[in-house]
């Protein structure tokens, strides 16, 4: 190890005049983490700019809530954001209630074949759209929503594709966020926020008797979520950092 370090120092010394620090990777400054509006998650610094971040979890675990929170803070700060919606499930009403400035949001709805275009799957369309949007630049947040896509299909995305996305986003101030059921980006992911349901709070007479249902006799109050940040840094030596936070959100509308 010592001889390798010496050799590296010698080579760098020889090349110093032409290529300063030829064999030393350029240190990247730590980018600020984007806020999602949930204190317990913001404390984890789960969404640093210039990285590929993943929000994973099964349905009804608060993935979309966090996505809307991030979009709201990004667009309210005057930055443009984009959602590449593979299964066309984005709800503008819900997003607007979360504070998203819709005019600053570009929504790409995959799944429809254009009249003169090639017939491609929604996932292929989405990956193609991500390439174009990453290349375009200028967005604060680029979100790829794979939440409605089957695990098998998502697993078919090659590691090379994720790596390419990671390299493309590294040189920008954008956060590239992937919302999915399981983490797939492997080492290309800067951070993985794994969500799981920790409970659903019910209010009303039926709480005691789960099988008894009478019209309007209970109210589903809150959805409680446990979030575990699996990886938080990409610099060497890579350490698996695990931090945990919990949050709960009310169900919208009727009250």
């Amino acid at each position, binding site marked *: 190890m010592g001889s390798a370090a010496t050799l590296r120092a010698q080579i760098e010394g020889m090349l110093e005049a032409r290529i300063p620090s030829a064999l030393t990777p350029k240190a990247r400054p730590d980018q600020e983490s984007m806020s*999602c*509006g*949930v204190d317990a998650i913001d404390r984890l610094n789960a969404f640093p700019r210039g990285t590929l971040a993943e929000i994973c979890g*099964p349905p*009804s675990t*608060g993935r979309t*809530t966090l*996505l*809307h929170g991030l979009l*709201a803070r990004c*667009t*309210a*700060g*005057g*930055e443009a954001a984009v959602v590449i919606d593979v299964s*066309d499930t*984005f*709800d*503008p*009403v*819900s*997003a607007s*209630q979360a*504070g998203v400035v*819709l*005019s*600053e*949001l*570009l*929504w790409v*709805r995959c*799944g*429809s074949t*254009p*009249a*003169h*275009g090639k017939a491609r799957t929604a996932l292929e369309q989405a990956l193609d759209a991500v390439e*174009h*949007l990453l*290349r*375009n630049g*200028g967005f*604060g947040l680029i979100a790829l929503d794979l*939440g*409605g896509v089957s695990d098998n299909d998502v697993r078919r995305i090659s590691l090379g594709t994720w790596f390419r996305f990671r390299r493309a986003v590294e040189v920008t101030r954008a956060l590239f966020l992937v919302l999915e059921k399981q983490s797939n980006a492997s080492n290309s992911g800067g951070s993985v926020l794994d969500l*799981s*349901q920790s409970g*659903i709070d*019910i209010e009303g007479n039926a709480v005691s008797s789960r099988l008894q*249902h*009478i*019209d*309007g006799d209970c*109210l*589903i109050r809150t*959805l409680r979520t446990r979030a575990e940040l699996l990886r938080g840094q990409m610099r060497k030596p890579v350490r698996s950092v695990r931090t945990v936070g919990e949050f709960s*959100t*009310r*169900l*919208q509308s009727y009250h």
Partner: protein
Amino acid sequence: MLFACVYVPNFVAQAALRHERETRSKPFAVVAGAPPQTRVVALNAKARKLGLWTGMTRSEAEVLAGIQIRERSIGLEAAAHAALLDCMTGFSPWCEDIADDTLVLDISGLSKLLGSPTQIARSIRDQARNLSLYIWLGVARNIDSAIHAARLAKGICILPAGREAELLKNAPLEILDPSPEIAGTLVRWGIRSFGQLAALPELDLSQRLGQEGLRLQMLAQGRSTRILSPTSSPPVFEEVMAFDDSVEDLESLAFVFNRLLDQLVLRLTARSLAVGELHLELQLNLAADGATATERIFTRVLTLPVPTVDTRLLLKLLQLDLEAHRPGAPVARVILHAEAMRPRVIQEGMFVPKGPEPQRLEITLARLRGIVGEDRVGSPELIDGHLQVPFRMVRFTPGAARTSGSVSPVSQTSVRVFRPSVPVRVEKTNGAPRRVRFRGVDHRVIQASGPWRRSGEWWTPDHWGRDEWDLVLDCGGSSSRLLVRAYRDLVTGQWYVEAEYD
């Protein structure tokens, strides 16, 4: 006062081949008239050397090998004239439109910017050359002498003050364009040049030819009291190209678009304007094999987020738009029309986040529309109404909204909407769902909250109504629960799952 006259020699031929650089170096002729009386109306020097002359019939001209024949086009001539006018108004707003091939402009005061009259004339000539127009220029203290100098000079002719008569003395009388009677009389007298006419005794000339004779003599002497009357018609930025054989390939059309866009942008730049909207009109050949289009005219409009003079951007947008909306038949004629706007100048704020670059974004959006479809890319806009789908897609224009910068903490659970809603089979107990089956999976309902009735548009044929339920469903062996919003359609009685809380 100092006036410059711009004259376009062989205007009809120049206008016909303005967009065809390759053909200009070959012998060519422009023909006009209905068959069989189609005759040559203009030709270039190489064609003349081959033995062609103006007035010969098309069939006679076609006998000669290597001759390029073009139909005379009023549209192309109008476009060439408009281009010339744009070019000249870039030098001086005081510009008079004398004829299709002749313009006069007041260049007094330009010497401080461009130098001597010769240098001004060279600048004008170079600018016109960028528009593929080869011009002759005459500069004089009065308008008529400038016109005569331009028609006489094969290049640039500067007439110094007081020496107009001397320098124009050898000019042929045809330049004065006298009436046939007067021209005949002067020929019988042996008068053929300006100098000869200028030397005739004034009184005798007046007795024989009247006031018209005196006027012509005054012009031949380089004297004129004509006042400039500037052209004030609004400019039309339009370029046209017609093909002998209709073009089907979009890539070939791209070359044509590129040339036309170059010309449009040059004209707009001369007036310090930019393209705000681009109108494309294609005349289709519906008789061609495999044509699927039903209308002869195919039009597309590109509205740009910011006015631009970037030809590459405009070309790319046109290509992407035509790939997404194919004409459906070979193209016989292309018309590009630009709506001119003042270029936008923006002072970026030091603390304002930098958004996507508008020109680049427009290309990206066009590409995305090509991938997912025309109406599937944009910003959602909420509709203030009792609708089942309470939003519409609008054009994405970032930076247009004023944002507050502050957002309250996240407190509500967001939803993911299934489009279309998923049909569901429901078993009920006491009116509430007990078991549901959707997407091929049975779920036990653990909690059911509802119903909440919603309805709208009951005053229209599109009325709708539903009883909505929030359901907590078990997910087989998993401890995690699925939280969905289901509803019973009050019109059909059918149950659906509309969204999932997430």
